[in-house]
């Protein structure tokens, strides 16, 4: 299965992954190979099946709206590449 260059560029934009010019053909070939595999699904007769139900009858639990976690801003921001005065820093967005 062949994937157009334009399609890969669109995917790369959506997925926020930079793909180097020289690798686009190879990436496309391997994605095509996987999509060929998953295209086998199309032959399955799934009429009348609800894909949203599960075998385990789990119920979504609710809890009281109470604070259970303590504020760990400093500990969590210590992991960040760049912070200032409690804010995460990124390159300038507004000119």
């Amino acid at each position: 299965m062949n994937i157009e260059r334009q399609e890969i560029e669109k995917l790369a934009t959506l997925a926020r992954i930079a793909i180097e010019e020289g690798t686009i053909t190879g990436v496309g070939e391997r994605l095509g190979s996987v999509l060929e595999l998953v295209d086998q699904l199309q032959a399955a007769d799934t009429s009348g099946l609800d894909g949203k139900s599960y075998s385990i009858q789990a119920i979504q639990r609710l809890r009281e709206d109470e604070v259970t976690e303590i504020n760990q801003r400093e500990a969590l921001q210590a992991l960040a590449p760049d912070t200032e005065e409690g804010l995460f820093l990124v390159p300038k967005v507004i000119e």
Partner: protein
Amino acid sequence: MHNLTIAELIKGLQSKEFSSVELTQHFLDRIATMNPGYNALITVTADQALRDAAEADRRLAAGNAPALCGVPMLHKDIFCTSGVRTSCGSKMLDNFIPPYNATVVENFEQAGAVVLGKTNMDEFAMGSSNETSFYGPVQNPWDTDCVPGGSSGGSAAAVAARLAPGATATDTGGSIRQPAALCGITGLKPTYGRVSRWGMIAFASSLDQGGPMARTAEDCAIMLSCMASFDEKDSTSIDQEVPDYSATLSKDVQGLRVGVPAEYFSEGLNPGTEKAVRAALAELEAQGAEIIDISLPNTGLSVPAYYVIAPAEASANLSRFDGVKYGYRCEDPKDLQDLYTRTRAEGFGEEVQRRILIGTYCLSAGYYDAYYGKAQQVRKLIQQDFERAFATVDVIMGPTCPTPAFKFGSKGDDPVAMYLEDIYTIATNLAGLPGMSVPCGMVDNKPVGLQIIGNYFDEARILNIAHQYQQATDWHNQAPEGVTS
């Protein structure tokens, strides 16, 4: 001491045959000598382990020791460990030191286990050979030219090489069972929801499940009794009492109905693997089990369905790695888009990027119904196959994987060749069922795994069957050359 099982180590510690400090130092020495070859561990936590062992010895002396007090263990590097780097096998998280423990890690800590370190794995658990790890591949102790399987390849190789008596692992499409089979150890993927996913780095949230790896079913039972719990922090955790899995191991298998699906003995199955699995079935038949031919007709659709659902979930889960809050960030980003796209291109390896792109494709406008919607319906078909089967049988058995361990690089450039490695394991993840791999033979001096699939929450039964099988056979006691001395 490294040849003792967890059950034997608990007895030895409680009867003061050896101390936890002695035991811990012994395993740390083995890791220091042997791990540079196997590459099974990413991080060794020697100082902390010795401190925890000393504390365990105090509790053992005081006579108030919990279940696993002083027993050394390893955690797959997907479980967050407070203050200890948790990389998930990725450059993206090479510098990530979590400020909290995963519930699984907490459970082992409460039980008094001593953590020796963190095991190597395929990057973000995406792989079946451990070749996608940022930290390099893990060697299979049975044949160092061969892969240990994946994604929990480090945990499996470490247990096989007796660098630890047990290790935690996770299974999204076979990542506990396949490496357990390839390394000749015992591993169990529990029912979805049995083990908390809190603090377990997410790959595909509707499929991911943590479980134990050890040398025997008895040890897996001990580990699972500690590992499984209801956890309010995981919204898919199931509020059901955790049984004492060790208590029911000794029941016999008389009258047990074992379903053997024709589809698990299809083309591509190694003849030696088939022979070993058939011999294991004959052994259980001799013990009084009834072998019943069954069909799981949609087995062939499980790999295609998985490679829509798992990448779709992964593409959403991994969107959090953006170079802003934690983890890797590219050098000198020129603007915000450049920061995102280069961070992710440089921080993720090729297989992870591929799965994100596939997931993005399947979820994108115009393709959603044809791919994701269809795959979810096929998932239902697969669940119905199992429901029909479990109406007439108690458990299902077959091979864990089609061949014994394969050589590094042998799957070539086409990702699909590697994906098909999980042909017998993926369906249980799609259905949410528990599955286990137990050593049942050798082909060319490489181990073969018997897979035992149970109904929902039937872990006690499959552990019982595996234990009964191991009482009558010796495959789980086989060891790679040079690791027992």
